């Protein structure tokens, strides 16, 4: 049982890690190209190939595979049961997703799909690209099923018992992913694939963008929740303390689940095909979804304070000093929370109904999501990997010191990369351009920030290499005498009677469905009620 679970987890996580390294190299190329210091690499077609590949890998591959691996390991280590569906189902899902990824990688790297991570029509990629994306998503749905059913079976076998928080939250994440990925899957299956194969002549770009927006916001919460899981269930343990509140953590996860999907239209604020009224409705939900993040911040920091004080920290801030910063999980927790604070407030501006026009599609947006996703979320993926590695591989981590250096470099690199990036957006630089070829008086103010970004990019690439070395070399260390155990944080107040609503998802799924119909029902239906003009395929 352990062998299968660990093999399946490691397979998924290694797909994530290897593609991550490749995408990190592309990121370095891009930031070097944009600096203008290396004219020989300024090949516009190559730049867009890189941006598309980098985006798809970081946004669809690294994330999905890492989360699946993490999820499988959570089933094994918290429920201590078989993964539902057994070996065959898990590997089947993996093969679908991996096959789709390989197909997409070939398309992207050969320049047949330079249509960005968002693949907005009417720019058309090779149809194989869309098929690959569909396989990747459908493969991940197998994982979703396994998460949900594993929890369901466990609950039946343990009536009245509280589902372990890590499992509960990751299952919520699986449900979230399934619901949100329906948007892009519909776009791919009903619009992009038939259109790219020539079965239908035109598609409605407005409908395509609306369907994509359905996925586009909640996908970032799909990425973020595993970081929050680490905050709640791994960080307090590593810090030597306890989780401040198990119930509040569940409430927070549920708020994220309910409020993250039906708010996608803040990505369409300046699109003309949706009425302002609907955009306003989505704005309200977008601010609501900020609340669980604020709550999580409190819970995480409070848990750390508990640990700090248990270690002897005194006074208002003494507990910070007392924490065990030489533990990778503790260090990453602190660094992640710092990045969450800055990036989170940036997000509030993006969410602002009337202020969004100042930043829409400027480099502020790109800076924002690198800080909040590549920073806050992904640094916790690294530390979750370090944390899981001993129990997953049966061997100690290759080097804790290297892990600490790697995490510091990631944080410093990310700050140096993204803060100038935000400024570039405020200085007017638009998104998705290579070396800015505009007039000198327009681009001159940008140059120093581009240079800083290059420095950040170099630091990040070094960090990425250290991560892979550490995790890879761990496989070759001598086996530990006793099998390391994956330990989760206990709650400060043990959960006695868990309310049903905080232990299941039936009710909440119904709430989401109703909310989705209310907030996306007419905005999608309108395209079928009015006469629209479709668009033929275009190449880049």
């Amino acid at each position, binding site marked *: 049982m352990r062998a299968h679970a660990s093999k399946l987890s490691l397979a998924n996580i290694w797909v994530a890690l290897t593609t991550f390294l490749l995408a990190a190299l592309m990121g370095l190329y891009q930031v070097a190209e944009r600096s203008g210091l290396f004219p020989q690499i300024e090949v*516009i*077609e190559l730049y*867009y190939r890189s941006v598309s590949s980098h985006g798809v890998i970081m946004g669809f591959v690294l994330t999905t595979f890492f989360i699946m691996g993490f999820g499988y390991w959570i089933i094994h280590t918290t429920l201590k049961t078989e993964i539902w569906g057994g070996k065959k189902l898990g590997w089947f899902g993996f093969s679908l997703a991996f096959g789709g990824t390989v197909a997409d990688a070939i398309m992207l790297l050969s320049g047949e799909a330079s249509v*960005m991570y968002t693949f*907005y*029509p*009417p*720019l058309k990629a090779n149809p194989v690209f869309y098929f690959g994306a569909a396989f990747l998503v459908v493969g991940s749905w197998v994982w979703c099923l396994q998460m949900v059913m594993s929890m369901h079976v466990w609950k039946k076998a343990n009536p009245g018992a509280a589902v372990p928080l890590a499992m509960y939250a990751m299952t919520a994440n699986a449900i979230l992913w399934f619901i949100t990925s329906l948007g892009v899957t519909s776009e791919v299956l009903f619009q992009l694939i038939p259109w790219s194969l020539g079965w239908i002549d035109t598609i*409605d*770009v407005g409908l395509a963008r609306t369907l994509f927006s359905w996925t586009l916001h909640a996908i970032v919460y799909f990425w973020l929740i595993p970081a929050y899981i680490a905050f709640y269930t791994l960080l307090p343990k590593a810090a030597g303390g306890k989780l*401040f*509140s198990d*119930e*509040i953590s569940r409430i927070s996860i549920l708020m994220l689940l309910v409020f993250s999907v039906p708010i996608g239209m803040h990505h369409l604020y*300046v*699109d*003309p*095909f*949706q*009425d*302002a009224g609907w*955009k*306003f409705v989505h704005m309200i939900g977008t*601010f609501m979804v*900020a*609340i669980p993040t*604020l*709550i999580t911040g*409190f*819970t995480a920091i*409070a848990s750390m304070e508990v640990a700090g004080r248990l270690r002897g920290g005194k006074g208002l801030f003494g507990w910070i000093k007392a924490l065990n910063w030489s533990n990778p999980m503790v260090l990453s927790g602190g660094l992640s929370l710092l990045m969450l604070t800055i990036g989170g407030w940036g997000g509030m501006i993006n969410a602002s*109904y*009337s*202020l969004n*026009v100042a930043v*829409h*599609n*400027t480099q502020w947006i790109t800076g924002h999501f690198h800080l909040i996703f590549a920073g806050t979320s992904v640094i916790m993926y690294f530390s979750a990997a370090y944390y899981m590695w001993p129990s997953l591989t049966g061997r100690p981590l290759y080097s804790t010191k290297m892990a600490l250096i790697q995490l510091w470099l990631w944080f410093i690199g990310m700050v140096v990369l993204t803060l100038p990036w935000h400024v570039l957006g405020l*200085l*007017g630089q*638009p*998104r*998705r351009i290579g*070396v*800015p*070829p*505009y*007039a000198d008086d*327009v681009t001159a103010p940008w140059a120093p920030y581009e240079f800083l970004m290059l420095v950040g990019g170099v630091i990040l690439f070094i960090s990425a290499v250290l991560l892979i070395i550490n995790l890879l070399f761990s496989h070759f260390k001598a086996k530990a005498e006793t099998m390391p155990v994956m330990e989760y944080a206990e709650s400060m107040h043990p959960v006695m009677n868990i*309310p049903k609503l905080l232990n299941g998802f039936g009710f909440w799924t119904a709430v989401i469905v109703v909310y989705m119909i209310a907030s996306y029902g007419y905005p999608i239906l*309108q395209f079928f009620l009015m*006469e*629209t*003009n*479709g*668009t*033929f395929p*275009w*190449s*880049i």
Partner: protein
Amino acid sequence: MHIDGTEKKWVILSFAMAFAMMGILAAYAINKNIHPPSNVETIDSTTLHLSEEFNEDNIGIKREADGSLRVTMVAARYGFFPHNLKIPVDTPIKFRLASADVLHGVHTAFTNMNTMVVPGYISEVNTTFPKVGKFPMFCNEYCGLGHDYMWSQLNVVSKEDFEKSMKEGDK
């Protein structure tokens, strides 16, 4: 279910902050009529140059019957047409944009004139420019290999200069 007192206060504070921000945005939207571009009008992008509103004779700046100003523009790979617009400062302007081909975006840097230009739909932005100067107008949505180069200049001039140039027949 036990919830710590401090945590309870924070939860309430979080809700309060979120509602306060929503409230401020709602107040501005309603009072000052500040809304993102959302006109929901369709058009056929394949016949744009044959349409009534976006044919080649009609693009550019025009004074409407009621004295207001309307700028009609087309986004097509890789430029905004007409190039080099001159508009008066402190005057309400209605921009009407359509795409002749793919998805574009247009943002006049340092202003709130920012909208997607979606094939099949007309974009409308109503705004006023409070400062005189030359503002770059960028395409900010990936539209192909020439996206980097797709930009224009918006020349915001004094009202007098604008009246002069209208008389001289500049568009």
